[in-house]
């Protein structure tokens, strides 16, 4: 009865009625963005994946400053749990200022490539990169092993999980293991259901009251997202991401005479890395699809298509944190400078020329993809 009443009220309101109505094609597009949450994925290259003891110890390591070179930086410093696992800064600051914005760790276990340029194909590989990078935690492998051993309590518990292998391992192996423990914890970071997920379930489940509860402005924004904007071509699926890399016209100078090469540079880094799925530290070594990723000219200056889940909580935006708000991001696409994109590059990108109200609607929609845990 309540559902019928809600539907009747909606039909009596001409302005809202348009937003209430979704075509079969729109419903299908909306279906693609769920269900949520997705089942947690197990990583065969990480023997600690899904292990409750390892997850708990990985969480402890996540907050552990003693792993860094000077004992003053923890993963949680840039990936703050109270800030959706980001830091609110334009670019990260570890032991020194970095050049890239801190990516949120929400749903990171669902990815295939990690980081803005995909320098890693495993979460554990991605987790040890900041440990070793001087600008982040500045702890090269041998130093990390020594520091771990110096902390008696930490070493004791590490040994309890890793076993006798901990004693015999060299610095590189210890680093990989620390990465795997950190990854085991991060795999559990799955963002909560959101207003959008409830709306989607209501729409597909023929629940007019649930549909009506979703704000009209968000509905209009959703229609733009899957319609005029074609945003869902890249921000696809339940994650609102493709796990791919694109150049979207963002400048990528990092100073006079220096650029962030993006995917191009990071793919080269990946190829040279031992901390990858097919590498010597993998628990399921062997040829991987990721090893075949092809270096292309378009990769230069291309960056990750980030997930939009929890995006409202992770400002500022883009690989260099140059855009302070979701509205600024949408304006970037609305006024896209086509000459910064190659004429035959990402052909789906065109200036959207959105009105003020359309921008507000898109922001309203994007906000419904986030929820406090």
């Amino acid at each position, binding site marked *: 009865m309540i559902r019928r009443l809600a539907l009747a009220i909606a039909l009596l309101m001409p302005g809202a009625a348009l937003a209430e109505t979704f075509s079969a094609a729109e419903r299908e597009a909306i279906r693609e963005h769920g269900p949520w949450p997705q089942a947690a994925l197990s990583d065969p290259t990480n023997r600690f994946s899904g292990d409750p003891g390892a997850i708990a110890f990985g969480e402890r390591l996540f907050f552990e400053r003693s792993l860094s070179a000077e004992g003053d930086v923890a993963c949680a410093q840039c990936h703050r749990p109270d800030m959706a696992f980001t830091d609110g800064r334009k670019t990260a600051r570890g032991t020194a200022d970095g050049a890239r914005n801190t990516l949120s760790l929400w749903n990171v276990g669902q990815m295939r490539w990690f980081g803005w340029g995909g320098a890693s194909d495993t979460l554990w590989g991605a987790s040890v990169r900041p440990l070793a990078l001087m600008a982040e935690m500045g702890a090269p492998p041998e130093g990390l092993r020594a520091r771990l051993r110096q902390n008696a309590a930490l070493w004791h518990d590490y040994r309890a999980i890793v076993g006798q292998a901990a004693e015999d391992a060299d610095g590189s192996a210890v680093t990989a293991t620390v990465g795997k423990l950190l990854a085991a914890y991060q795999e559990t970071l799955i963002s909560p259901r959101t207003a959008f997920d409830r709306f989607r379930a209501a729409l597909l489940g023929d629940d007019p009251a649930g549909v009506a509860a979703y704000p009209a402005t968000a509905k209009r924004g959703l229609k733009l997202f899957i319609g005029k904007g074609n945003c869902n071509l890249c921000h696809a699926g339940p994650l609102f991401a493709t796990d791919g890399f694109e150049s979207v016209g963002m400048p990528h100078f990092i100073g006079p005479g220096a650029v962030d090469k993006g995917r191009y540079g990071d793919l080269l880094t990946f190829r040279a890395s031992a901390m990858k799925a097919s590498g010597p530290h993998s628990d399921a070594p062997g040829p991987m699809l990721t090893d075949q990723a092809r270096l292309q*000219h378009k990769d230069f200056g291309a960056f990750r298509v980030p997930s939009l889940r929890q995006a409202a909580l992770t400002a500022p935006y883009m690989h260099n944190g140059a855009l302070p708000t979701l509205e600024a991001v949408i304006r970037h696409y609305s006024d896209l400078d086509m000459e910064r994109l190659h004429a035959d590059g990402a052909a789906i990108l065109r200036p959207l020329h959105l009105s003020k109200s359309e921008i507000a609607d898109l922001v309203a929609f994007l906000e419904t993809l986030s929820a406090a845990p």
Partner: protein
Amino acid sequence: MRLLTVGLLCLAWALPPAAGTAGAADAGDLPVIDAHIHYSHDAWDMLPPDAAIEALRAAGLSRAFVSSSSDDGTLMLQDLAPDLIVPVLRPYRRRGEIGTWHSDPSVVDMLRDRLAKRRYAGIGEFHVFGADADKPVIRAVVKLAAEHRIFLHAHSDADAIRRIFMQDPGAHVLWAHSGFAHPEDVAAMLAQHETLWADLAFRSEQARGGKVDPEWRKAFEAFPKRFMLGTDTFAPERWHYVADHASWSRAWLADLPRPLAENIAHRNAAALADWALAK
């Protein structure tokens, strides 16, 4: 399962080079001419002219075809390094004219004025597609190129290239990006038009892992004097890609017989530049 094992496919990668690479070049030392460089106004601050020249030399380029929005960028570089820069006159006064220039008659006056003052090897790189190539501005540009005996650097589809040759069967045309066409179609165009050359800028598919794709190899072998290299610095940041691009190109050129590799690396571009500049 997130990570898929693809043993067979990867084993193929590990195989030694395929037949047909006998006599392949050791291309690490190849001089390279980059036929597709822009030095537009938004690059001038982050990469001043002396730094731009240094970047080209550091990439091991022997020459570079440069066209810029505005043309002043090209002239700044040529004044600093006349031995290195092959000036190509771009019909854009600043960014943002890609889609409008061919309907703007004042472009022709600008080109005529510039051509009267300096020697250029070509006009371009310009963008024109399909029937737009028959517009009066394009017709005037084709005429100007013929008058000055210089080439046209056209970012165009095959249709527009054909229309240019209809206007002037003797036109010399450098087809930017090989029209982003399939190698078979590029070869067909080259067969049809004897004064058509093709640059490989922003094309990645002609080689993989240093090995030349068989279809492209066929095109290169059929037209050994018609292909050339190019980076395309369409955004200022891409100046920092010129050296990477030259290295990448040398890697796949090494999979070709040395004479063919040398043609694509520099001889074909040098011949076109020398034809245009030797007056």
